[in-house]
């Protein structure tokens, strides 16, 4: 993905090139969190085989399992953000998909494989419709992405409540439950599915010109259009893909407990997705994305969630903590901090080596959307 490795042979330079890839730091963070857990409980990392379940179990497996829905939404969000957009309705896609699946399963009453497959298909389809609405509003009508997806975020949860009649619908379907709780060759199905989907999306966008076109739109939509990129179709596709991936995340989240919680399923998951994407090195200004980075970011968030619970911190505090992390990430990425550090350095050395008395960077508003401040990491 980032093939900008310098040909310089010095070891320090090469190490720096590795360090510049942001997701490497995310891996470091995951390891640190795991070390904290191991200090609390030395057996934390042990993975055993359970004959009851027919597969591996342990905290590491739990972390991977928890990261499956985040992997889905982070992948979708990475693509949307790369076009210079945002999808705030990803959590609502989750809850709508969950509501549709649970309602369908509880109404049909059958627990056959066919019903479960139909429920899965229906859930993804309805989530996809949400994406179609977003896609039309953004690409055809030309609304700002955040406003159309904000409407869908809040209205979507209302739609989910209408679907279930305000209830938290529960259903029983063994095949559907298998998606989240089953095992294949000793590995959790949900993790395998998530990995397959992420790899598939990654291959599709990076082995074809699609990824390049998405980035071109994110850099300059008008220039991309003039260069022959079908801007409308690609933006539309990206929003639909994000919503379908969100729907899959909703299936993962509801299938494990076979209940849809209309006010909590997928709630505030937008932040998880954005955070995972930012951690992975995707620029929020668009024009650059890394599926690999987003995937590592998703695993980091799942690790963080599990660690917080493991350490006994009330889980209601995690959103605040994540928000603080994202603010710190912005600070590290910002040119403002670098100019401040440079100022500090130049004043300390007090040498006359051209101290750039740079004012805080002027926001260069792009001509189309004034809200699109440029973030150059």
């Amino acid at each position, binding site marked *: 993905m980032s093939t900008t490795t310098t040909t310089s042979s010095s070891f320090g330079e090469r190490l720096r090139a590795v360090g510049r890839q942001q997701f490497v730091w995310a891996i470091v963070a995951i390891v640190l969190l795991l070390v904290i857990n191991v200090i609390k409980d030395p057996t934390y990392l042990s993975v055993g085989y359970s004959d009851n379940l027919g597969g591996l179990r342990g905290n590491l497996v739990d972390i991977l399992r928890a990261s499956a829905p985040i992997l889905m939404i982070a992948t979708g969000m990475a693509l949307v953000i790369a076009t210079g957009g*945002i999808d*705030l309705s990803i959590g609502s896609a989750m809850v709508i998909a969950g509501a549709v699946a649970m309602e369908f399963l509880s109404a049909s009453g059958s627990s056959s494989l066919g019903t479960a497959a139909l429920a899965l298909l229906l859930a993804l389809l309805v989530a996809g419709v949400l994406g179609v609405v977003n896609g039309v*509003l953004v690409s055809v*009508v*030309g*609304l*700002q992405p*955040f*406003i*159309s997806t*904000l*409407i*869908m975020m*809040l*209205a979507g*949860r*209302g*739609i989910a*409540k*209408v679907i279930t*009649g*305000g209830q938290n619908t529960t259903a029983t379907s063994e095949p559907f439950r298998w998606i989240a709780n089953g095992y294949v060759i000793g590995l959790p199905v949900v993790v395998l599915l998530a990995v397959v989907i992420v790899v598939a999306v990654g291959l599709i966008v990076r082995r074809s010109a699609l990824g390049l076109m998405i980035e071109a739109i994110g850099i300059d939509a008008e220039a991309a259009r003039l260069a022959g990129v079908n801007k409308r179709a690609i933006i539309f596709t990206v929003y639909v893909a994000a919503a379908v991936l969100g729907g899959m995340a909703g299936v993962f989240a509801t299938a494990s407990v076979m209940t849809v919680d209309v006010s909590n399923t997928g709630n*505030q998951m*937008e*932040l998880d997705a*954005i955070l995972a994407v930012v951690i992975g090195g995707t620029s*929020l*200004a668009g024009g650059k994305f890394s599926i690999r980075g987003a995937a590592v970011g998703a695993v980091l968030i799942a690790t963080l969630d599990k660690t917080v619970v493991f350490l006994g911190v*009330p889980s*209601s*505090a*995690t*959103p*605040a*903590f*994540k*928000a*603080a992390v*994202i*603010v710190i990430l*912005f*600070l590290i*990425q*910002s040119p*403002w*901090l670098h100019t401040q550090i440079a100022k500090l350095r130049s004043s300390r050395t007090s040498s006359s080596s051209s101290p750039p008395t740079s004012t*805080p*960077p*002027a*926001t*260069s*508003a792009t001509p189309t*959307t*004034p*809200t*699109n*401040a*440029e*973030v*150059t990491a």
Partner: protein
Amino acid sequence: MSVQTATAPRETPTPTPSAGPLARVTGWMRTHTTSLPTWAALVIFAGMVIYAEVVYGRILQPSTTSNLLINNSHLIIIAVALTFVIITGGIDLSVGAVIAFSSVAGVMLANAGWNAYLVMVLMIAFGAVFGLISGWLIQYLNVQPFIATLAMMFLARGLASTLSTVPERLGDDSAIRALGTQIKIYDGPKVNDFVITPGVIIALLVVLGAFFVLHRTRTGRTIYAIGGKEQSAQLMGLPVHRSKMLVYVISGSLSGLAAVVYTARLGIAQNITGVGWELDAIAAAVIGGTLLTGGAGFVLGSVIGALVLGLMNVIISRDGSIPPEMTTVITGGVLLAFVLLQRAVVRRRE
């Protein structure tokens, strides 16, 4: 803003003066494109009042009118807050969450025996701090406004949940409740009185203050100029950085104030208070004619927008056949319709 100036007689060959009333209306519409949504909101509000009066009755009477004002005073305040932000071309998604944090923290402090007036000031200050962080993120770290305020939304909501996850009841003898006491203005038959609360008065003062700042001060001019084109405003030597920060601090402080008014009326604060209020506030501002792209907007229009939403809730509850879950869906639909209307109007002007 440039509405009044746009009416200046120009050498426009298209509208002939002797044309019929229809042509005169379209001509007027052509010169008043930015204020068109505000007028549309006013017409819709009047239409809704008439419809509700005919279908359900008992709308145009003192008790319903005063309830509309009392129940929506907090919404009016945050609609004003969003008007400031949206005029600069930004957005503030954190208002609802800031209200939740501010009210939960305020009620807990008041119950811990703190002075009620100090608590009220602190509640506003909490909001201001969130606004300050948003503004700093946006102005100095170049974060997009909706991302920065989204982060603040989660931060405030998370902190509120950390403080408490159960409804916190304000003590019955607390002085904060005084803001929710009803003052009888007009004594009608039976319970049909026109009453207001100090909360309503605060909301009206906020509206007047906002109107004064936006239309009669340099700061207001700068805010409109930033929304028009930020770079031009900067090149003109206007204090863009300071004003942009200020706008978010205003928005945060007004959210804190809305928390005071809301808590005083309800007497209960909870971490899930204000979920989705950012949508209501944005909808109110947009219905009232504030352009989401910035540069144009009317604070009085936002008040109408807030009342349209309030009346919509009254109609939904009177009707009874619409499930309450539909409310956010309908609000979203209305907002979408107005955003599309704006889009059409702006496209036409271009």
